[in-house]
C-alpha cells in the first residue's frame, strides 16, 4: 500500500485485505447523545478501513438552528469561495456563516477549506421548498471543480475526509456535538480515488448514506438520475444511493418497504412465487424502475430526519448485523463493534438480503419490526399504492409518481 504511514499500516503490509466498516446508532425516542459510542465502535472496526476515508452523519446536531438548511461546503480550490458565497447570498437568506471548527490532528494531511452556511428560503422561493434546495446544490457542485456542497440538510451535519474515522472525529472536534442518530464510516476505497469528497457519508437534504460494497450499476443509475436533475460530482459510486433515496422516498413518496424493492428487488424466480397482488407490485416496480436497481454487492445505512434504515443487496454479499436494546437501534458491519458499546443487547440478528431494517423516531422498537415478511397489502393501504388483483397489473396512483416518471 503506497503512501500509507506507520499509523495506517503498522505492520508494513504490502497489501491489505479489508472492506469498509459501517456503524449506526439511533435513539428512537429522539434523545440526543454524544459521539462516544459510534467512535468506539468504528475504532473497533479499524481493520476494515485503510485510512483513505472516514466520516460521520449526525442528526440533531444543530438544534439552535434547526429551521435552517445547514450547507457544509468543501473548497478544494480556495478561490472558489467568494463566488459560492455570493451565489448563496443571492438565492437564500444567509443566517450565519463560519468555518467548520477543526483542530490539527496527526494523520490528517492537506485538508480542504470547509465552511458551513445556515440558510433559509426567502418568501418567493419558499413554496418550491426542497426542490429549490436540490437545484441550488447541484448548480454549485456542477459549476466547475473545487467547491462541493456535501451536506445540505436541516439539523444534520456530515463530517468527512481522508483519514481513519477516529482521526476525522478528532479533526472536526465531534466531542462538541450531540445527535439522536450517529452514522459512521471507515473507508477502504477500491475503484475510486480516496479524496475528501469521496469519503462517506454522501448526503443531500436530510438524506445521508454510508456504504460498503460496489455499485456495478452506477452508470445506469447515474444516467437515470441525471435526467431528473441529480448530478454526480463526487467520483464515487455511493453518491447515486443518496440521490436514489431522495428521488424514490421524497419526490415519489414511496415508503421504504417499497423503495427497498426497487433498489434490491427480489429475483424473478421469487417474484413468480408471490401471491398475485404482491407479484404484480414487484413486477411493476422492476419494470418502471429498472434503471434504479442497484446491482452489485452492497450494505448501506441510510439516514433521514427521524429515521435510520439498514439494507443489503438481495443476496447479501456484504455483511450487516442489527441489534436493539431499549430505545437504541444499532446497525453494524460486525457484531463485535456493537458489543463493544452494548455488551448485552436485547436481540442481535442478521437480516435477510433486501429486507430493510428501519428505526423510526417515536415508534418503539419491537421484537420483529423491520424483519418480518413484507406485506404488499398493508403498504398499499398506507401509501395509496393500488394493486388490482384480477388484472395482475399494479397501478401506482400517486400523482407525483405518474407525473415524475
Amino acid at each position, binding site marked *: 500500500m503506497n503512501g500509507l504511514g506507520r499509523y495506517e499500516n503498522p505492520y508494513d503490509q504490502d497489501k491489505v485485505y479489508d472492506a469498509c466498516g459501517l456503524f449506526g446508532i439511533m435513539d428512537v425516542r429522539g434523545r440526543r447523545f454524544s459521539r462516544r459510542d459510534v467512535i468506539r465502535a468504528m475504532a473497533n472496526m479499524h481493520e476494515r478501513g485503510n485510512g483513505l476515508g472516514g466520516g460521520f452523519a449526525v442528526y440533531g446536531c444543530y438544534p439552535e438552528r434547526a429551521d435552517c438548511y445547514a450547507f457544509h461546503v468543501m473548497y478544494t480550490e480556495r478561490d472558489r469561495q467568494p463566488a459560492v458565497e455570493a451565489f448563496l447570498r443571492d438565492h437564500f437568506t444567509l443566517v450565519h456563516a463560519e468555518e467548520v471548527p477543526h483542530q490539527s490532528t496527526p494523520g490528517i494531511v492537506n485538508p480542504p477549506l470547509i465552511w458551513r452556511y445556515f440558510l433559509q428560503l426567502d418568501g418567493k422561493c419558499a413554496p418550491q421548498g426542497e426542490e429549490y434546495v436540490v437545484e441550488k446544490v447541484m448548480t454549485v457542485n456542477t459549476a466547475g471543480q473545487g467547491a462541493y456542497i456535501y451536506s445540505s440538510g436541516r439539523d444534520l451535519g456530515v463530517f468527512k475526509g481522508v483519514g481513519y474515522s477516529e482521526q476525522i472525529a478528532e479533526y472536526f472536534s465531534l466531542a462538541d456535538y450531540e445527535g439522536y442518530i450517529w452514522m459512521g464510516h471507515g473507508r477502504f476505497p477500491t475503484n475510486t480515488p480516496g479524496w475528501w469528497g469521496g469519503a462517506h457519508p454522501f448526503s443531500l437534504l436530510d438524506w445521508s448514506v454510508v456504504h460498503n460494497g460496489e455499485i456495478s450499476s452506477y452508470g445506469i443509475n447515474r444516467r437515470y438520475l441525471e435526467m431528473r436533475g441529480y448530478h454526480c460530482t463526487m467520483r464515487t459510486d455511493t453518491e447515486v444511493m443518496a440521490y436514489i433515496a431522495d428521488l424514490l422516498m421524497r419526490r415519489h413518496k414511496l415508503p421504504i418497504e417499497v423503495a427497498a424493492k426497487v433498489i434490491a428487488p427480489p429475483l424473478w424466480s421469487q417474484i413468480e412465487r408471490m401471491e398475485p397482488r404482491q407479484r404484480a407490485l414487484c413486477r411493476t416496480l422492476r419494470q418502471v424502475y429498472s434503471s434504479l436497481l442497484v446491482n452489485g454487492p452492497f450494505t448501506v445505512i441510510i439516514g433521514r430526519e427521524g429515521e435510520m434504515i439498514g439494507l443489503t443487496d438481495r*443476496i447479501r454479499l456484504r455483511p450487516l448485523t442489527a441489534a436493539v436494546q431499549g430505545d437504541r437501534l444499532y446497525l453494524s458491519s460486525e*457484531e*463485535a*463493534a456493537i458489543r463493544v458499546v452494548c455488551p448485552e443487547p436485547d436481540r442481535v440478528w442478521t437480516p435477510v438480503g433486501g429486507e430493510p431494517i428501519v428505526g423510526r423516531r417515536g415508534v418503539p422498537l419491537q421484537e420483529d419490526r423491520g424483519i418480518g415478511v413484507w406485506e404488499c397489502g398493508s403498504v398499499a393501504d398506507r401509501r395509496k399504492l393500488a394493486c388490482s388483483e384480477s388484472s395482475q397489473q399494479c397501478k401506482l396512483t400517486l400523482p407525483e409518481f405518474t407525473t415524475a416518471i
Partner: protein
Amino acid sequence: MFRVESAVQIDAAGVHYRDLNARLRDAVEDGAERIELHNVFGQRYIGTDLHRPVEIHIYGTPGNDLAAFMDGPRLVVHGNVQDGCGNTMNGGEVIIHGRAGDVTGYSMRGGKIFVRDDVGYRVGIHMKEYQGQCPTIVIGGTAQHFLGEYMAGGVLVVLGLTLQPGQQHVAEFIGTGMHGGVMYIRGELEEYQLGREVGQVPLDDEDRALLGELMGEYCTHFGFEAHEVFSQPFTKLIPLSSRPYGRLYAY
C-alpha cells in the same frame, strides 16, 4: 500472560489481532494444554497457524475468519462468531455456543464445526474433501440462503432446532453449484428451495449411523437430549453431477 491452574489466561481487551495470535502461538509452543481468551471483541484469525491439539476457550465475540487455516486445536466459543469462521480450516474443532455469520466453513478442508444456533448466508461454500480428510459442519438452528453453495465435498448437517413447531427452513438456493459431498437437513424442503444442481435421495443405514454419531457429539457439546434431535426425518441432498458447469465453460 500467567498460568492459573492448568489454563493459560489471556486478556484480549484492546489487543491487536496480530499480537493476540502471536501470544497464542507462543503459548502453544510453550506446551499449553488449555488457553482462555477473555474480552475478545472482533479480533480476527484467532486459532490460525496453530498445528497441534490444544483447547482454547474464547469469551466474547471473535472477529472474522476465526480458525482460518487452523490445523488441530479445539476452539470453544462462548458467544457468537462473525463471518468466515473455519476459512480453509484443515483440522481440529470449533464449537460455537451461539450463532455464526456468513460463509462459515468457507473452503474448509477438514475438521468439524458445531454451531448451537443459526448461521448466515453461504455456509459451507466450496468445502471439499480429499482421501481421509472430510470436513463436517453441524448447525443446530437454521441457515440463510445459498447453504452449501459450490460444495465440493464434506458433510453439512442442519438440525432446525430453533424453528418453531410447524415452521420450515426459509433458505433458498440450497446447494447451488454443488458437485460433491452431502447435506442432511432435518425437516422438509420445497423444490424451489433447492439449487438446480442438487437432488433429494433417501437415507440409508450408513447415513443414519453417521448422523447418529454427529448428533451425539452435538448433544454432548450443547447439552441437548438426543431423542429431541431425532424426532423429525432428515432430507438428504447430493449433487446431481460432479461437474455441473462442465458444458458451460468448456465445450
